[in-house]
């Protein structure tokens, strides 16, 4: 057990360091500051005091950046190693492929979560400076967002094993952003479409990654408060089940992958 933990910890550390060495997160933080600073100084029609739109834009940026980081983190776990052939010495070690996958996934997840923590620290700090409080809804929103990141990293990791880097990044972004914005409307689209399109949309609704479940932005911005504990637990369970399923498929793909 101790050996297993030490192996996993080494893999986690490697993945974690890689994200922070790339400086992606710092670039995103600078971009966020460049976008938010002029917005925070704007006084529409000369009226001051509107803060909800700032919170909304800031949260949208947090979501967009976390999606970028998550997909990138999952994407870079195996694909560059296959391309540079550094995967051969890794696989020659007395560590199973499943354990390598688990360790790398946990490392990517830790790095993506650390970036998310930084984004939320900045968001919460700026909100507190403006005198906005979120109550119990904020910890829930962060927890659900973290669950979404776990799902997104797993999806990106699986995609990186079965398709090229650019295709994987694009498809993951389309799938997750598409579900985030339109997931709840898919039954309407299915009802409006006919024939095979309707069935395809229904299938996407049934098995697609429902990113919209994790979105508590409107609750935070408009002060609706925390969500029902049962629903909260249901979303976490959904994320855990979906992520586990993705990782199982990824493990099976990696095990059968011919180098």
């Amino acid at each position: 057990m101790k050996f297993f933990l030490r192996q996993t910890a080494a893999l986690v550390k490697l993945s974690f360091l890689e994200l922070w060495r790339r400086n992606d997160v710092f670039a995103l933080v600078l971009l966020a500051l460049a976008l938010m600073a002029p917005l925070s100084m704007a006084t529409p029609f000369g009226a001051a005091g509107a803060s909800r739109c700032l919170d909304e834009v800031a949260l949208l940026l947090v979501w967009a950046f976390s999606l970028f980081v998550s997909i990138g983190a999952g994407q870079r776990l195996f694909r560059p190693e296959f391309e540079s052939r550094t995967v051969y010495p890794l696989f020659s070690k007395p560590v199973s492929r499943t354990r390598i996958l688990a360790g790398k996934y946990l490392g990517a997840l830790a790095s993506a979560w650390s970036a998310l923590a930084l984004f939320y620290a900045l968001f919460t700090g700026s909100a507190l400076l403006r005198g906005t409080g979120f109550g119990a809804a904020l910890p829930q929103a962060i927890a659900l967002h973290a669950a979404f990141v776990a799902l997104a990293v797993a999806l990106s990791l699986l995609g990186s094993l079965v398709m090229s880097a650019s295709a994987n990044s694009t498809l993951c972004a389309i799938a997750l952003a598409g579900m985030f914005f339109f997931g709840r409307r898919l039954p309407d689209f299915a009802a409006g479409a006919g024939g095979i399109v309707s069935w395809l949309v229904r299938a996407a609704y049934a098995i697609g990654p429902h990113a919209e479940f994790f979105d508590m932005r409107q609750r935070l911005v408009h002060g609706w408060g925390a969500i029902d504990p049962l629903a909260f637990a249901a979303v976490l369970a959904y994320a855990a089940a979906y992520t586990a399923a993705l990782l199982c498929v990824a493990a099976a793909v990696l095990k059968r992958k011919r180098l």
Partner: protein
Amino acid sequence: MKHAAIFCAAAVALAAILSRFPQERFPQAVRGEGALAVAFGDARAAISSAMMRKADGYFHGGVDAECGRLGEHHHHHGHHHDGEEADCGDGHGKDGSAGGGLFDPWAWIDAHVRAPDVHRHLEGKDSVEMLPWFWASVKADPHNIDAWTTAWYVAHNMMKDEDLSKRVIGEALASNPDSVEIALYAGRQLYDTANPDLDAAAKAFAAARDLALSKCGGDLSKLSEDERRMHGFALGYLEKIAERR
């Protein structure tokens, strides 16, 4: 990176050159000068409408106004969500029942995570939260009269901020000197107050009436339905002022 910079510079230069051409040569829905108007064209009207919807959502405490949950709700700020029942009529309630009566767990989760438990509206000074979206709307399309008038209503009737509503209607008039509706609202700014300036209000309503008449050459049937209605309102206000005197 270098190619992207060259491409962006070329795009901006092209937009700047095109903006110098007479506007009649470009069938834009959104009139305006400058590179932005040329570059975005019709998209500006769509963006402006989207910003209006966002402001409407804020009025409802963040609820997407197109969602059928709001039903046949009519605002006290005088407009109605067209087609709101059609857009979101998936039949998914909080109990997660789908249209056919089957339990839909996804709909159940979504309803509990996103949907509000109460139906509430912004009121009083809190209504300032809508203004950034109206501002964005009129920046995208300065000729979106509905955005100007709704922003004025929010400032004047909901926030009770005379100075703010005066600034809004002043900017609206500067951007839309030929709008009968804006001219009418300029009159309302002077009339619908605790201490109305009846002379100035009468002048403003007369200006709105005259603007409508000048646009149609005296034949009201040539006016749009909205402009005819505004002309009627202007006459109504003029009658009220005459009675008060």
